[in-house]
Structures are given as structure tokens and as C-alpha cells.
């Protein structure tokens, strides 16, 4: 279900996607690309959880990106939203940029997160393993960065470049809007000091990575598992950065099993 939620006295108008009706709350923080109109993996998770998937300000129909400068603003945005939705505590699942924000907001206030799942999150930089410059990548190279198999139907669908000029322009403007916001956390290097704060994440944490992630290589998993005490790593085979689309059953199982355990 998609609803519009007025947040913080109208400072933000948020396009909120929800899945399922019962179970513990699960807040999904999307990556730099935003949410698809329909997310089958969230639908699956909706069988066991009440899933909240807000479009971040600047994404979809959500407004108010001008009020957000950094990870602190982003974290407070999500925590305020949780208050408004009357969720004192939630399981939090974040993918890529959303994983970075999920880690940051948990570090800022660990009591709001019940369990944390970080799916190939951003947030660190290793000089020996530079993350490719996603922002400068031409459209026709993006599928190769994001998918284990860039020729799979999922990859083709998600990275299709419209032939029609008008449609291309619309896509271009939407992409600019999304990535302009993402740049606040990711430009030019996706590290905003999480290494100083990550020790505060003491909730049960699962780090899940696509084995052939070419955008944020799996070597980054150790940055998280070594800093988050007791966290565990699950690697998904034949999956790249967009693991929840490429290997949906394995991804959903890993998340569900962890949250249910």
C-alpha cells in the first residue's frame, strides 16, 4: 500500500510504502536508486513483518531533501518518522546507501533498533579497494556494476535505457534528483565517519553481501563485522550488489531467519 505521510509538521511529505499487516515492524531503508513501485522481496517479508518502506526525501514523491545535509539529519529524519508511526523500536534493514544510514542511525541511538540487517552497505573506504565512481558511470555501464549477471531479466528491466527522448529526459531528471540527494552521504567518497561510531552498534546484526558485488566489493564486509561486535556475515552466491532482486529467495530467507531467530 502506498500512502502519503506528512512528517514533522509538513517539513517532509513522505511517500510511504507498506507491506503486510502483522508481525514486528521492519523498516526498510532503500539504496541510492530508490524504491521500485512494487518490491517483491518486501512483499515476501511482509508475510512475517509489518514492513515500512518510506521513500527518502528527494526520492519518488517525497519532499524536503533541502532539510537534510548529513547522516545526522538523515538519522533524525528516520527516528522522527518512527515516532510519528508509533514505532518505538523496529528491525531495520538497509541496502547500500540505506545500509550506511541504518548503521549510522543505530550508532546514534542503539535503543531504537531491535535487530539490524545491512545488505552490502556503504559507509567505509579502503584505499586498496576503491569503490567505482557510480556517479560518473555512463548508463550503459551501470548494469555491470550492480548485477552478477547484467544480462538477466531483472538487470535488464532495472537498468533499461528508454529509446524515446521524452522518456529518457524524465528518467534523467529523476536520476538527477535521486543522486543529488545520495551525494550528501556518498560524494565524493562514501565515508562520513562511521568508523568512529560503529562500536555503539550492539544490537544483533547481520551483514549480508552478494558474492560478486562489483560496486562495493565483498572485502568491505570485514569493515563491518570487525567493528560490530557479535555481528555475522552471510554471503549470497551468484548475486551482485542488487542481491535482493538477483537471488530473492536466498536473500529473503537469510533476512527472515535472522530476524526470527
Amino acid at each position, binding site marked *: 500500500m502506498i500512502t502519503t505521510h506528512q512528517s514533522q509538521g509538513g517539513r517532509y511529505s513522505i511517500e510511504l510504502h507498506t507491506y503486510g499487516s502483522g508481525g514486528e515492524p521492519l523498516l526498510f531503508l532503500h539504496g541510492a536508486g530508490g524504491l521500485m513501485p512494487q518490491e517483491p522481496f518486501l512483499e515476501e517479508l511482509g508475510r512475517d513483518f509489518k514492513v515500512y518502506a518510506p521513500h527518502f526525501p528527494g526520492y519518488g514523491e517525497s519532499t524536503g531533501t533541502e532539510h537534510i545535509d548529513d547522516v545526522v539529519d538523515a538519522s533524525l529524519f528516520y527516528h522522527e518518522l518512527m515516532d510519528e508511526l508509533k514505532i518505538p523500536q523496529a528491525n531495520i534493514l538497509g541496502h547500500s546507501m540505506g545500509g550506511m544510514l541504518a548503521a549510522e542511525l543505530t550508532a546514534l541511538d542503539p535503543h531504537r533498533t531491535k535487530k539490524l540487517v545491512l545488505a552490502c552497505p556503504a559507509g567505509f573506504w579502503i584505499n586498496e579497494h576503491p569503490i567505482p565512481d557510480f556517479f560518473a558511470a555512463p548508463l550503459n555501464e551501470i548494469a555491470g556494476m550492480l548485477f552478477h549477471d547484467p544480462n538477466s531479466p531483472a538487470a535488464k528491466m532495472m537498468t533499461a535505457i528508454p529509446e524515446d527522448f521524452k522518456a529518457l529526459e524524465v528518467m534523467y531528471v529523476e536520476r538527477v534528483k535521486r543522486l543529488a540527494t545520495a551525494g550528501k552521504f556518498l*560524494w565524493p567518497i562514501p565515508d562520513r565517519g562511521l568508523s568512529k561510531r560503529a562500536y555503539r552498534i550492539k544490537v544483533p546484526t547481520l551483514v549480508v553481501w552478494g558474492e560478486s558485488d562489483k560496486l562495493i566489493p565483498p572485502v568491505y564486509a570485514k569493515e563491518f563485522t570487525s567493528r560490530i561486535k557479535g555481528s555475522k556475515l552471510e554471503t549470497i552466491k551468484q548475486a551482485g550488489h542488487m542481491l535482493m532482486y538477483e537471488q530473492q529467495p536466498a536473500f529473503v530467507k537469510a533476512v527472515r531467519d535472522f530476524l526470527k531467530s
Partner: protein
Amino acid sequence: MKFTWFHLMPYRFLPEDFKDKYRSVWVDIPRNLYDPKVGHKLYNDYLDQLEYADGMGFDALGVNEHHQNGYGMMPSPNLMAATLTRRTKNANLVVLGNSIALYNPPIRVAEEFAMLDVMSGGRLVAGFPVGTSMDDNFCYGVVPAQLRERYYEAHDLIVKAWKEKDIFSFNGKYTKLRYVNLWPRPVQQPHPPIWIPGGGSVETWDFCANHDYQYSFLSYFGYLAGKKVADGYWDVMAKKGKELNPYSMGFAQIVAVSETDEQAEKDYAPHMDYFFNRCLHVYDGFADAPGYRTVKTIKAGILGQVGDRAAMVRQDLKWKDFVEQGYVIAGSPKTVRERLREAMKHIHCGHLMTLMQIGSMPPELVRKNTSLFATEVAPYVRDLWSEYEDKWSPKRMPQDEIAVPAPVHFDSRLTNGAAKHPAAASHAEARSAK
């Protein structure tokens, strides 16, 4: 009509196969293509050319700022302007400009521009570009979505530092200063004229109009393609009830003068090719970081200067097309005079910034172009817009108060024979030509 002799300071010796072998002249241009000894010679040549233009009666000399760029070797245009204060006498110094969003704290720009204004006796034009995406976002790492906010804040601080009579505190979002106390202060009071170079962002028109700044449209597409942007600017000015004074707009235009139209092609065609195919060979991914241009500008459909779409428009253009489509105003003095007058009327422009050193052009040809323009073209176009007052040029100190550098006497014992400066140049030319 006023004429600024504008230098981009390109590296003249990019390899023949540059376009095929490398993806970009900007941001990630290979370091090994730069030879510092060639660079030494080029700076010397280029400063000579600017000084020559001063002697030939140009109203102003122009320099600008680019980073990690094979066609613009001025990460700091202020160094060039400072050098020019010593050997030039008449021309104004148009620094177009300092990318103020990149300086932290931006008060540095207020200080350096004040220094330049004092050193030159009040000849400075202060340019405040937002800067290109290549420079600001990719080379200097500014978050694209923050760029304009940083720019406006830096502008407010710099102008206040120039205007304010007392020490003040500045509590900005990006810059916080307890004691702002500009010292030295500019000769021109309250501050040097401000020109805003732009590539066609709609926000820049409003900004110029609101502050009565001069808008300098820096286009490499020439005056015919530039018409759309010029019209956009004049529309904004008209809507705001501003005087449509041609001197409130500057325009950069490649100009190439020779004895005849045919000779112009022989002289300049290879250098146009070098400029468009090597100097402007910019990787599309660097042209426009997401958030650099506002959605409003993107929707206005204004084509960026570089990147795939710009390259596509220019693709396969020959000399004849470059001339016909106005990329270059070229030919005999008579042709250039006529074309130039038509061009400036077409876009209603009072400050022409001539680009007369194009790409790989060697010093002799630059001198010829400059001299022909100064003697055979400028005098015949100067009368244009004489009914308007130019409120955007510097107001310098009276001539009798201008300090003059003392003559220098070289002592061969101290310099160990190395100070034979004119000859040292020809040695380097031999190197760079190989």
C-alpha cells in the same frame, strides 16, 4: 564596445591520438602527458601574449580557473594576474574568476582580489564563477547538491568583507569566522566590479540581475548558438525592469584574423581542430554530476559545454561549418569586422572576450592574430554601443599616482651567466617542438 584578450592557457602538445587513447582532457587526464619544462615555456609564452595584447591596446586581459585540465593550466589565475600587474600598464585585469565555493575560508578570495586590486592600482575585475562540475565536484570534491548554497554564502561573505567598515563576525553554514577584518582593502571602493561567468544556468541570470553584476557567457559554441542563452539573460533583465545595457553582458568568442579569408583557414583550421577535438574532449560522466545543474536548468534544455551531447553537435564539423555556424569569427580584417559587428548586435553584447590563442596555436600566429585584430578590426567596431555607459569596468587610480617598477640590473657574477633570459626561451621552444 570593449575588448578583453582572454587566455585559456592550453597545453599545446597533447598527442595526435589523444582522443582515441584517453577518455578525458579533464579530471583524469594522464599525468605523464605533462612535461614541466614545456610548461615553463608555455607560461612564459602565454604571459608574453597577454602583455603584448596590453601593448596593442586591448581594454582588458582575461584569465580563469580550471583544475586537472589539459586546456586550462591555471589552477590559480590569481598567480597569473599578479604577474601581469608588473609588466602591463593600461589593460584591466579580468580574473574570471575564482570559484568561490571551493575556497575555505572564502575570505581568501576577498584578500587575494584586494591584493590584486592594490597591486594593479585599481585595474581588477573580480569574477565569481560557480565553476564547472569537473572542477568543483570531481576535482575538488564538493557535494553537488551543496555547491550553489556554498557559492551564495561565499559571495555574501566576500562582498560584505569588502563593503563593511568595521570588523564583523560571520556565522555561515559552511564558514564561521569570529573576526572578519579585510586587510589590505581594495583600491576600488567599495569593491572591484563583479562579473559572473556562466555557461547557461538560469539561476545565474537572476543572480546577476538582482545584484547588477555583469553576466559573462563563456561559450565555446559561438554567437549563433549563444543566442538562446543571451536571450534568456535579456528576458530576465527586461522582466526585472533593468536597463538593457550591452555592457552588462560579456561573451567569449573565438576570433581568427588573417590577411584573407582563405589564409585564415590555412592559418587557423588545424588549431580549431586541436581545440575542439583534444581540448574539449571531456568524458561524459564528468560533464554534469547529479545535482550540479538544477532541475530547472536541465528542463530549460540548455546544452552543456562539454560531454557527449556537446561533442555530438560538433562532430564532423569542418572549418567551413565552424565559420558558418559562428563557432569562430574568422577571415580577413574586413570579414571579421562585419561579422563581429553583426554578432555583437545579434546578442546585444558590449564586452567581447576574444579567444585568440586557440588550442595548439604557436606564439607567432597568436601575435599575428592579435596585431591584426588590434589594428585592423577593433578600431572599426569600437564605436558600437557608444550611446551606453560602461558601468562594469574598473575605476583605476589616477595615472600620476601609479607606482612603476624600478629597472633591474643583472649582475653576471651573481646569476652565474644564467640570466640571458630572452635566449633561454628559444632553447625551450626547441625542446617543446620535438
